[in-house]
């Protein structure tokens, strides 16, 4: 999702995540950007409508209620003169206990943080000349930026082996089995080559 820092785009992002996942409500973690709670409610909230009372006046607006299994925790940074002095967490949806239990279950996360996505952002800055900080090769058109990101994400998911995902194997010649993120996610079964990515049959007119 490429766009300005506004609520509508946050809603689109969350709707995109919901549409690509299998309907299971994930455990969300984010920084304090205020758009996220409304966006999560927009994507995952259950609409509650109020019956008409029969009395005069405008009927009550329907409200969005958080589903019971929705967990959302925020990382709150405390700053003093621009420097971060302390970090605390805040649970927005769900209970502290439930979030703790979720973290215990998780194979990777131990704390409420956004490290994985920050690392991913860094990878993206590394892989896209347009996203490099203080560069002069920035995009002049938004569409081009989006296109570059589509290319880089596909390359990252399907072609480039991820060092953090490689698995140790017992073999004489090989110590590690390389994996791409898509392999780990069970989408593909081998590391794709560039021809495989670009000659894959996709129907342009479904």
């Amino acid at each position, binding site marked *: *999702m490429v766009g300005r820092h506004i609520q509508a785009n946050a809603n689109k992002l969350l709707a995109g995540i919901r549409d690509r996942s299998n309907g299971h409500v994930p455990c969300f973690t984010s920084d304090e950007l205020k758009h996220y709670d409304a966006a999560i409610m927009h994507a995952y909230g259950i609409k509650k409508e109020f019956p008409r009372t029969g009395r005069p006046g405008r009927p009550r607006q329907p409200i969005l209620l958080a589903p019971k299994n929705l967990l959302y925790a925020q990382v709150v940074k405390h700053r003093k003169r621009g420097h971060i002095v302390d970090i605390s967490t805040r649970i927005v949806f769900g209970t502290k206990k439930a979030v703790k239990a979720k973290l215990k279950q998780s194979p990777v996360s131990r704390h409420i943080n956004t490290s994985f996505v920050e690392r991913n952002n860094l990878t993206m800055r590394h892989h896209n000349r347009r996203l490099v900080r203080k560069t002069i090769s920035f995009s002049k058109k938004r569409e081009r930026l989006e296109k570059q990101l589509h*290319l880089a994400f596909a390359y990252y998911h399907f072609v480039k082996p991820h060092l953090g995902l490689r698995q140790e194997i017992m073999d004489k010649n090989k110590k590690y089995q390389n994996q791409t993120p*898509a392999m780990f996610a069970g989408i593909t079964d081998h590391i794709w080559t560039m021809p495989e990515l670009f000659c894959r049959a996709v129907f342009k007119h479904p």
Partner: protein
Amino acid sequence: MNSLSPLRCPHGCKPVKQGFKLVRRYGPHYTPLYECLRCGQQFSGRYDSVFSGFHTDEQTIYRVLKALSEGIGIRAAARIFDLDKNTVVLMLERAAEHCKRVSEQLIKNYPMDECQLDELWSFVKKRKHVSQHLRNWQPSMVINGSGSALTHATK
């Protein structure tokens, strides 16, 4: 390498399995020429693919795309591979459209258990009039969408 096997007949025949015959290879890059077994018309293997319309050979196009997705700029890639800047841009556009479709096709119904949300700040800028320079400075945010969701959930 299943390079340039046709996806469908450009003349509107329904996609059937093994409905194409390799007639011959033509041109400097040995591009395959196919014949649709249903309608009998011939078409290029580059038709409807990322490579259609380019004079560049496939290996160079792959290298250009790899360079672009490893963090090399458009002009730099054009200089490295002795191509025109506009050719590289066209390659990027074609490839991106294809990659978008591949991602849409494959990344769905993903069992997501954890999701971290964050933004990535970047900007798009174009100087149209010098006096309006500051007004045209559009900060834009790149929110990591499907991509980050996939990788961090798997890590």
